[in-house]
């Protein structure tokens, strides 16, 4: 009996002392934090992808609380819904933002862009990029080592072994921008998803002169500026032998696609065209269009 009592008392006393220590420590070393940071962090997706440009969700929450307005602050993963919640907590108004998706601007498949040498270094685009212009003659195109795949936290980007190019799953892509940062050649761009996911994109970033580009790749943009001339909306600019379609201005008329001699301009998620003439198909047909992957689209084009 006595032993039990002693044991209980000793352990009880130890517990008390330790509880006291814990109490003192928690008071003394408490970090003062705006309680709203925690609240904001709670509504965030906690993917910690860094897509917002801050170190993780906690960092983003902190920035939201400290900033006076939410302009320019966007959680690409949670999107508009989450930002509205954040705005509610902070008593601010959320800015509107168009949903975006990552687009791989290279169509140099094995078929279009023959491999001339073999790269045998570590499997990393960054290293391949530092080593030389890669396995093909194109010094701007996709290296195919999959740094973007490794960077994606949402499993939205995969390498297609047939084309040797990464493909973005538009449904899973949250436009966090991790792949954009990971690509040493800045091939991936965040573009507006567009109506029904339809987009017109120049799938090329080659800045070489036309002759060199053509030598390296069948579908490389040669900067001939035919598309620029045909575009009724002035959405296309040519710089450094390369065309670029401004997705804000593009009205998806598809005129440039027909004009492009290199077939570098690709229409994504449009219904498959009937032989000719091709009237803009009705909405239901759009659903039949193949999935939102860029590269196969390009190869399937009739």
């Amino acid at each position, binding site marked *: 009996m006595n032993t039990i009592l002693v044991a209980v008392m000793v352990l009880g006393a130890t517990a008390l002392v330790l509880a006291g220590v814990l109490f003192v420590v928690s008071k003394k070393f408490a970090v003062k934090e705006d309680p709203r940071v925690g609240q904001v962090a709670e509504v965030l997706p906690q993917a910690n992808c860094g897509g917002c440009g801050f170190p993780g969700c906690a960092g983003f929450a902190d920035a939201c609380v400290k900033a006076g307005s939410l302009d320019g602050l966007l959680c690409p993963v949670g999107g508009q819904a989450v930002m509205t919640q954040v705005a509610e907590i902070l008593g601010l108004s959320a800015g509107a933002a168009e949903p975006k998706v990552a687009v791989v601007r290279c169509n140099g498949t094995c078929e279009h862009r023959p491999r001339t040498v073999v790269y*045998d*270094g*570590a499997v990393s685009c960054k*290293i391949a990029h530092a*080593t030389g212009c890669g396995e093909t003659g194109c010094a701007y195109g996709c290296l195919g080592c999959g740094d973007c795949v490794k960077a994606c936290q949402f499993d939205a980007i995969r390498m297609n072994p047939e084309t040797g190019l990464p493909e973005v799953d538009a449904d899973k892509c949250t436009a966090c921008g991790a792949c954009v940062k990971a690509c040493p050649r800045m091939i991936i761009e965040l573009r507006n998803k567009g109506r029904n996911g339809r987009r017109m994109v120049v799938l090329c970033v080659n800045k070489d002169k036309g002759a060199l580009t053509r030598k390296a790749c069948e579908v490389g943009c040669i900067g001939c500026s035919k598309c620029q001339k045909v575009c009724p909306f002035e959405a296309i600019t040519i710089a450094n032998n390369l065309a670029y379609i401004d997705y804000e201005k593009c009205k998806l008329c598809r005129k440039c696609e027909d004009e492009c001699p290199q077939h570098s301009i690709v229409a994504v998620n449009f219904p498959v065209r009937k032989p000719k003439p091709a009237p803009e198909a009705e909405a239901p047909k759009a659903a039949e269009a193949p999935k939102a992957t860029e590269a196969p689209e390009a190869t399937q084009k009739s």
Partner: protein
Amino acid sequence: MSPHVHSGDSVSKNMRWVIIAMLPAMLWSFYAFGLGAVIVTATSVASCVFFEWAINKFILKNDQCTLCDYSAVVTGILLAFNLPANLPLYIIIIGALFAIGVVKMTFGGLGCNLFNPALAARVFLLISFPVKMTMFPEVGQMTAYADAVTAATPMANLAKTDLLPLFLGNVGGSLGEVSALCLLIGLVILLVTRTITWHIPVSILATVLVLTGLLNIAYPVEVATPWHHLFGGGLMLGAVFMATDYVTSPMTAKGQLIYGFCIGFLTVAIRVFGAYPEGMSFAILIMNAFVPLINNACKPQRFAKEVKK
């Protein structure tokens, strides 16, 4: 990407040398314990290889063939070296599953494990089946397996054992640990082929020699002579094959010396003062856990370090 030439060294080459270095001790165990030793070794190797293959194929879904690097074979032989020759098959298979499945593959396979798989499995079995694991058959029963006559390991009564049979391996014990001579031959093979460096084995053996020597002088009755300690039990096996395992030993020479010293110290402490007559496996496992710390603390001698402040 440069360099464009390679030394031709490979994991499998290193592992092959380890296996070759283990052959003398293995052959001795076949000679000493006969059929039992063969059965135990074969079962252990086969089940280790099988589990490695099966886990890779069905759980990790890894197409890479990790069998070709022979590391599972090495683990299998090492596990067998740590078992008595009359151990039932199911215990060996459990040991192999633990070694490969739990200790090695859960951490990510070769190179990622924290502890030496064979050794961890031995300790696991020792704690799970304490009686079966410490009943060692007597030497010279060529055809016996389960029915072998057993005797206690000389470790229980180390001071009274003759030195020569202890050195040659004419005593009871686990398969691989009995013959210090064969293990020393293995050590020479490993050193000559540059598979390992001298730091770990030499520092372990030297530490044990010095410590037990001092203790022997202080307590000549209770503590056996340093030579008994060196040649008896699993010390030699551990120093040559277990502690030198690449994956679970420190990277730098300095770290390896510290590691070896600590293993030697712990072994002697457990053997002389602890409850178990054998302390090698525990000492190595404890030090395995300290390897990351040792690696952090012991950086190699940087170029021009003495000039730097």
